[in-house]
């Protein structure tokens, strides 16, 4: 090391080190996150009569998480994510009908089949605009819906598959009538998959996805194979959605045709947008707000609920584009800036 080069090299080394450290720190668990994960535990003790609703929230959270992976991180807009959810649910349903009701095997197979479908349909999404992607994802979901509807010999058609027999988890915990086991099971699955997703989005792979979302043309210059990354994340998102569908089928012990429906996809997109995209927690918070609101409002009248839902969407687009988390963080940012500028202003 010569006298001139070393300070520069050292400077740039510390700069790189600093930015890397900041980057690594962003992957650490924060206090708020620990607090958030106390919620499902608290809910278990606070609302013992509502396990079915609670597990619905957990399933929807997982489903929203899966969409966040492909939409929030990779920017692939989808109006047909219910396809993978439905594949997962029907996998469990059909296995259950044949007496293969082991829950964990069901999850793995559901993830596998959904991932296969996701892998192959992802190639359809590499070309074309947002609108074309929207139509293709919608088209794939509708095709599956039609197939499930018409091949009623296998899928039960409109009647669905009632009374699936699910064996106890790990041979120990039986699914009870009140959904207690179901709730714990759904939350554990959600947490494990969330943890994995969190690792993934903070990995170099996850960062390259963000890069693709920001500027897909520039990423090849950083030697990121854009298409391969998109295929990978779409397949992953599909597998996640498949697991969500599987958990739904297992906790409800029922599969209906509506899991594949358009409204399922549209609601999901709304949930994610409501919570905030690209933050992992957005989908979870959106799911909590959505399901709770739906539960109370549709008790009043199912049609009113749809009206308020529509109104919420319109207002969201007009006034709060980042969703709950996006708006909250914008607000916090503003407050922080104001707090920072105040002492400086006083000194000058």
């Amino acid at each position: 090391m010569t006298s001139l080069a070393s300070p520069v090299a050292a400077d740039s080394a510390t700069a790189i080190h600093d930015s890397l450290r900041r980057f690594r720190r962003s992957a650490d668990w924060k206090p708020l996150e620990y607090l958030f994960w106390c919620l499902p535990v608290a809910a278990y003790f606070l609302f013992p009569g509502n396990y079915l609703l609670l597990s619905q929230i957990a399933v929807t959270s997982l489903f929203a998480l899966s969409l966040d992976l492909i939409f929030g991180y990779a920017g692939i807009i989808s109006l047909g994510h219910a396809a993978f959810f439905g594949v997962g649910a029907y996998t469990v349903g059909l296995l259950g009908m044949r007496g293969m009701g082991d829950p964990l095997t069901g999850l793995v197979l559901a993830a596998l089949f959904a991932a296969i479908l996701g892998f192959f349909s992802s190639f359809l999404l590499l070309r074309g605009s947002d609108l074309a992607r929207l139509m293709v994802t919608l088209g794939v979901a509708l095709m599956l819906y039609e197939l499930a509807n018409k091949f009623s010999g296998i899928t039960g058609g409109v009647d669905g598959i009632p009374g699936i027999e699910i064996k106890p988890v790990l041979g120990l915990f039986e699914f009870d009538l009140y959904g207690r086991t179901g709730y714990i099971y759904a939350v554990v699955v959600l947490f494990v998959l969330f943890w994995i997703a969190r690792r993934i989005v903070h990995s170099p792979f996850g960062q390259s996805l963000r890069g693709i979302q920001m500027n897909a043309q520039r990423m090849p210059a950083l030697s990121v194979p854009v298409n391969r990354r998109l295929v990978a994340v779409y397949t992953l998102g599909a597998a996640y959605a498949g697991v969500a569908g599987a958990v739904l089928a297992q906790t409800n012990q029922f599969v209906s045709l509506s899991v594949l429906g358009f409204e399922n996809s549209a609601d999901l997109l709304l949930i994610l947008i409501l919570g905030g995209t690209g933050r992992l927690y957005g989908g979870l918070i959106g799911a909590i707000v959505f399901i709770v609101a739906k539960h109370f409002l549709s008790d009043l009248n199912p049609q009113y609920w749809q009206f308020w839902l529509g109104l919420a969407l319109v207002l969201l687009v007009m006034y709060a584009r980042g969703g709950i988390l996006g708006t909250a963080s914008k607000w916090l940012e503003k407050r922080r800036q104001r707090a920072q500028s105040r002492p400086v202003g006083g000194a000058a």
Partner: protein
Amino acid sequence: MTILFDGIAFGMLLFLISVGLSVTLGLMNFVNLAHGVFAMVGGYVCVVLLNDWGVPFLATIPFAIIVPGLVGVVLERLLYRRLYEASDLDQVLFSLGLVFMAVAATHYFFGARQQPLHLPAFLSGQIHLPGADIGVYRLFLVIAGIVVAVGLQWSVIRTSFGARLRAAVDNQRTARGLGIDVNRVFMLTFALGSALAGLGGALGVEMLGLDPEFPVKYLVYFLIVVTVGGGGNILGSLWAALLLGVADVAGKYYVPQIGAFIIYAIMVVILIVRPQGLFGRAHH
């Protein structure tokens, strides 16, 4: 032969409703999933006038055109205009919200049942030709579709309003510089698209049925016509609608066990081979 004709009539109906969407989506770049709402408004205006007020069917048609057109103007002024520059996603969510509200409101006012429509005698019945039985109403639909298609194509290409519209779409800033009131052009275009949807909705009650879920049920069909036909292309929409109509009717007749699967498959294949649609020009 009868199936072919039914398919064509169905396609004409789809064309009537979707051509407005083709304009907003293709020319104004607005992903308006709420387009079916305007068709539904037209349908309900027609049915209410006919059944509750005893207005003859043909006399209800002008109202079914004007009312959705006015609704279109109001919504465009109040809401749509603010979102012209927004992302596709925002437009999708916004218009989806409108659909939900419209469906719920229709439920509230008219109930969930299918609305009945009694056609006048001179429009019902069939004409028996060698080799084909042609429903009079279907023939009426085909003629209406052709008239609208020719009229629209002519007005976009030949009239000064059409020229201003094309200019406003191709380059808004230059068009403004040339003294074209782009906002007004867009508003009128939007109203025209809504009015046509209303016409299609009213004429379609007999064939498509009419209930509060109408905008959701047929949304996919309208979108298919536009995306396959290539946005903003009137003749493209016409061909796409006819193709879709014939494929759907024939598919449901010959292979009922897979139903609507065929048209979805056709759409996906076309979009993969030509993402800009069959007749669209790539403009991004």
